[in-house]
């Protein structure tokens, strides 16, 4: 052990935690520029300089001390992308606190584990509220009260199937496909039985709770910020999700012989 080892240890610890923060932010639905800014803000508060290379599925970091005598290099894979704005908001607040109050690495680690343990909304809240959001889409399209009810039931069922299938660790696009198929199957059934007037309203809006809003909006912000690679990849991700939704709808249409 040489005398530089404690300092070396510090830069390593900071680098580790920065990689972790970056990968959590990326997978929770922050734009590329936000990930970079947040990580650099925290690195600066330790008086280090951080350079990041951010992609959709992994990020790489170089942390340098002011004299350039110590560096840390690391790569971390990003966990699968699931939108979670509670962590985005929590980490953003934390980064300001770190910069203003000069937190230690241990404090950051403690706060990260607290943020990770924060509960999600329970299923009994999520299902009806998202069902209402689906009904709202139907209302904008000009649906009647019976259409709204149909879409509510279809959306709740579709989201339930999505949650259950995600637990079984299927491919994420396949999960979307199954959810879209379930929702449109239920909406289509009521149309087939003659409960709704015009089938277009209920049938088309029953799958809209699946639209990939966060990838598409982040794709646009990435274009503006000049992170064109990530923008293209996010756009493609959103496009494949849309395609999976359309495929689910199409399967129901073929089954019910709608045209």
């Amino acid at each position, binding site marked *: 052990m040489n005398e530089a080892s404690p300092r070396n240890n510090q830069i390593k610890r900071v680098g580790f935690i920065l990689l972790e923060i970056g990968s959590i932010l990326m997978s929770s639905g922050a734009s590329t520029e936000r990930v970079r800014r947040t990580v650099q803000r925290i690195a600066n508060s330790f008086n280090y300089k951080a350079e990041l290379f951010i992609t959709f599925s992994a990020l790489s970091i170089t942390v340098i001390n002011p004299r350039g005598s110590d560096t840390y290099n690391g790569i971390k894979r990003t966990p699968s992308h699931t939108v979670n704005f509670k962590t*985005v908001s929590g980490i953003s607040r934390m980064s300001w606190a770190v910069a203003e109050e000069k937190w230690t690495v241990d404090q950051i680690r403690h706060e990260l584990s607290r943020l990770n343990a924060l509960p999600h909304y329970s299923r009994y809240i999520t299902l009806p*509220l998202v069902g209402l959001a689906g009904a709202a889409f139907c209302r*904008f399209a000009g649906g009647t009260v019976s259409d709204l009810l149909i879409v509510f039931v279809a959306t709740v069922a579709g989201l339930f199937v999505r949650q259950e299938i995600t637990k079984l660790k299927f491919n994420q696009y396949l999960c979307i496909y199954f959810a879209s198929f379930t929702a449109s199957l239920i909406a289509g059934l009521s149309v087939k039985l003659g409960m709704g007037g015009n089938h277009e309203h209920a049938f*088309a809006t029953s799958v809209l709770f699946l*639209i990939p*809003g966060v990838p*598409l909006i982040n794709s646009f912000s990435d274009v503006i910020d000049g992170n064109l690679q990530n923008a293209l990849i996010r756009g493609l991700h959103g496009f494949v999700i*849309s395609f999976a939704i359309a495929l689910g709808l199409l399967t129901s249409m073929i089954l019910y012989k709608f045209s």
Partner: protein
Amino acid sequence: MDWTLLLEKVVWFGIAAIGFAVLFNVPVRTLPATFILGAVGGFCKLFLLEHQTTIILASLGGSLAIGLLSISAAHIKHAPPLVFSTPAVIPMVPGILAYRMMLGLIKLAGDVTGNSYNSILNETVNNGLKVMLILMSLAGGVAIPMLIARKESVKHLRLKKKITGTDKEKV
């Protein structure tokens, strides 16, 4: 203009925003602000639509309103603006148009010839372009207020110009 119908749809916009906010697992303290943002954005869109604006410009207006308000909301509730603006703009996504575009594409891939092919092609391209431009104006409208402010973070950004320290003391 039918105000009760407009009001009802505006409330639905707010409800849809709340639904997506819950789906995205936002902090509980931001939910009321998200409802208001969604409702105001919806109101702007419907109001513009009533006054002979195209659906593309109306969506841009609605999302601009959401983008501006999300900066104030971020200050009041201490959360990044995207937490408010993303769930609020998603209800404006043109679902029916996208559905019609998809139907059109499927029909074009089938066996159609002559005049009916032309009319389906016309409709599909029209719907597809509308969907694309509306999506771009939604994402753009949310981003534009940040671009104009030329700030990396909204943390130190105030919508109203601040009175300088000395002036404030005098007043």
